[in-house]
């Protein structure tokens, strides 16, 4: 187990390094000139040269990348002489737009995105697994067919359509909820939940549909295993058979996609956050794109990759907990 964990952590570091390198290349080599973006529209040639030195763009590429990496782990000083700015650990640079450290911007927005992703995840697991397991246990009945047709339809609706319909129906017509404004959980738990309810629903509908389809399939497969017959034969109540024996092994494939989805959503709910006006990482990313704020875009991409990679690792470790057949 320890050897396995060490190997996985090493691989994780490698993957992150590769992603950092690719991201760095895309954002610092492909565009015409990051210095021009940093300097703004009214920029003299002289000033541009200064900015270029300040950003370290006069250095060879590998040196820039090495500096960038060093910054993440130990912090670094950006620029030289009177323009020198200390960028503390973990240094992802400064936003061109707001001149704030990228790390602070990310951490400022993370609670919003995490609230959105986690709340939606709870909702979609309940809805999706509920529908999937119900359909699996009533395989080929009218309930099963209705649930699955509903799931395919819900999965085919674009999230921006569902979101707009929810805003229109619940907020504008029924007037049940105010237009979402984010409130911190610690300030006002009830306001937090009621403001996030619609974004959660919009995301959860989409994902629940996929989970219902997936969990139905794996549940049917699990319930056909010989150990289910054994469990029934030794007289266990059907409920125990389903929950403890069927669901537990049927959940392994669900866990895989759950890790990927949740990891991806933590920094990737760009559309949902934009439509509902939630000040999360996705919206930060979108704003940074519009303004060519490369350090922020790079920061979000790295953070998003980090979440995905870590989520994958956690999922793999959880396999051993859920499924006793898995050993490392």
């Amino acid at each position, binding site marked *: 187990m320890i050897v396995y964990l060490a190997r996985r952590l090493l691989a994780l570091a490698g993957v992150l390094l590769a992603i950092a390198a690719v991201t760095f290349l895309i*954002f610092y080599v*492909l565009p015409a000139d990051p210095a021009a973006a940093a300097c703004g529209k009214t920029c003299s040639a002289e000033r541009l040269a200064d900015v270029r030195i300040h950003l370290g763009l006069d250095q060879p590429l590998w040196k820039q990348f090495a500096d960038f990496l060093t910054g993440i782990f130990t912090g670094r000083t950006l620029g030289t002489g009177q323009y020198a700015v200390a960028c503390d650990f973990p240094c992802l640079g400064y936003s061109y737009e707001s001149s704030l450290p990228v790390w602070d911007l990310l951490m400022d927005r993370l609670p919003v995105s995490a609230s959105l992703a986690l709340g939606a995840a709870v909702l979609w697991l309940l809805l999706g697994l509920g529908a999937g397991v119900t359909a699996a246990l009533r395989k080929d009945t009218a309930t099963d067919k209705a649930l699955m047709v509903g799931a*395919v339809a819900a999965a085919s609706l*674009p999230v921006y359509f569902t979101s*707009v319909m929810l805003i229109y129906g619940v907020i504008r017509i029924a007037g049940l909820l105010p237009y979402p404004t984010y409130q911190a959980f610690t300030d006002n738990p009830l306001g937090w939940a009621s403001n996030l309810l619609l974004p959660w629903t919009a995301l959860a509908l989409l994902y629940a549909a996929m989970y219902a389809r997936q969990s139905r399939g794996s549940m049917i497969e699990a319930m056909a295993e010989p150990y289910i017959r054994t469990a029934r034969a030794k007289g266990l109540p059907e409920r125990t058979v389903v929950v403890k024996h069927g669901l537990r092994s049927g959940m392994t494939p669900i866990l895989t996609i759950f890790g990927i989805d949740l990891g991806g959503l933590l*920094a990737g709910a*760009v559309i949902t956050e*934009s439509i509902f006006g939630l000040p999360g990482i996705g919206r930060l990313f979108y704003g940074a794109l519009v303004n060519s704020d490369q350090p922020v875009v790079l920061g*979000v991409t790295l953070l998003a990759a980090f979440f995905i990679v870590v989520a994958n690792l956690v999922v793999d470790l959880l396999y051993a907990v859920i499924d006793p057949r898995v050993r490392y």
Partner: protein
Amino acid sequence: MTTTAPATDTAADAAADRPAAAPGSSPWQLARRELRRRPAVRVSLAIVAVFVLMAAGAPWLGALGGWSPHEFDKSAVDPYLGGQPLGALGGISPEHWLGVEPVTGRDLYARVVHGAQVSLLIAFAATAIVVLAGTAAGIAAGYFGGRTDTVLSRLMDLTMSFPSLIFMIALLSVAKDVNRIVLMTAVIGIFGWPGIARVVRGQTLSLKHREYVDAARVGGAGPWRILTREILPGVAGPVIAYTTLLIPGMISTEAALSYLGVGVRPPTPSWGQMIAESVAYYETDPMYFVIPSVFLFLAVLAFTLLGDALRDILDPRGGRT
């Protein structure tokens, strides 16, 4: 939807395993017969056919309405009402079959039809890249094993660890002056191949030591011949099923990227971009918002239903793990 009727099982087994086919009909004939039996398949196939025809014949079909997708019709909108379309239901009339855009008065029928072409072209082309690259990588990894497998499998893991939507958005926003359709196809394609490569790799691993492959090898067939004549037909079933299920995802991705404004540039219409433009009008001119959304929804739904059915028939055990 797993196989239920005994007839389904025969068809499925036959498709997955050629030698087991019933005498007299090929596995593909059995699959076709099974497909024809399902009502959902017939409906979704009809919708898919309509969309494909629409996309392929967009210039001619679009012209039937009498308007080009870029043509302004100021007489169809009310300048005193902020450019609202004249008439009920977003200006639906014999002149404009699906109504018009607010402000510009561009014909929605022409735009939706041309949008179908752009959306489906990108989706199909990206799917083609994904399927070709994924199948090639999967077969190579599975068949050659060893170092080839290690390298390709690590590459798959790496690609799957990328936050793909974020990355696609970033790539598309960084690259400025290139053909957007080609660029989008490439970017969507880059992140899609590992999924299918894994499926094909697994299938290849299980096929490569079958007797008929050994027989071909003993018979002196080279790797190229074995791969193309023996392995490829064996993985074709799952690949076709997976491909059909890829398309709705590609359509959605294209729409999402265009919706976010990093996809196809105006005035070229695509469904996602039309929806993005219409969101601001969802209250004042709901039809403008609903029409492209319904087209997008139907396309995704039809391809999903078709893919589901194909998977059940061609690859009864695939897509479960």
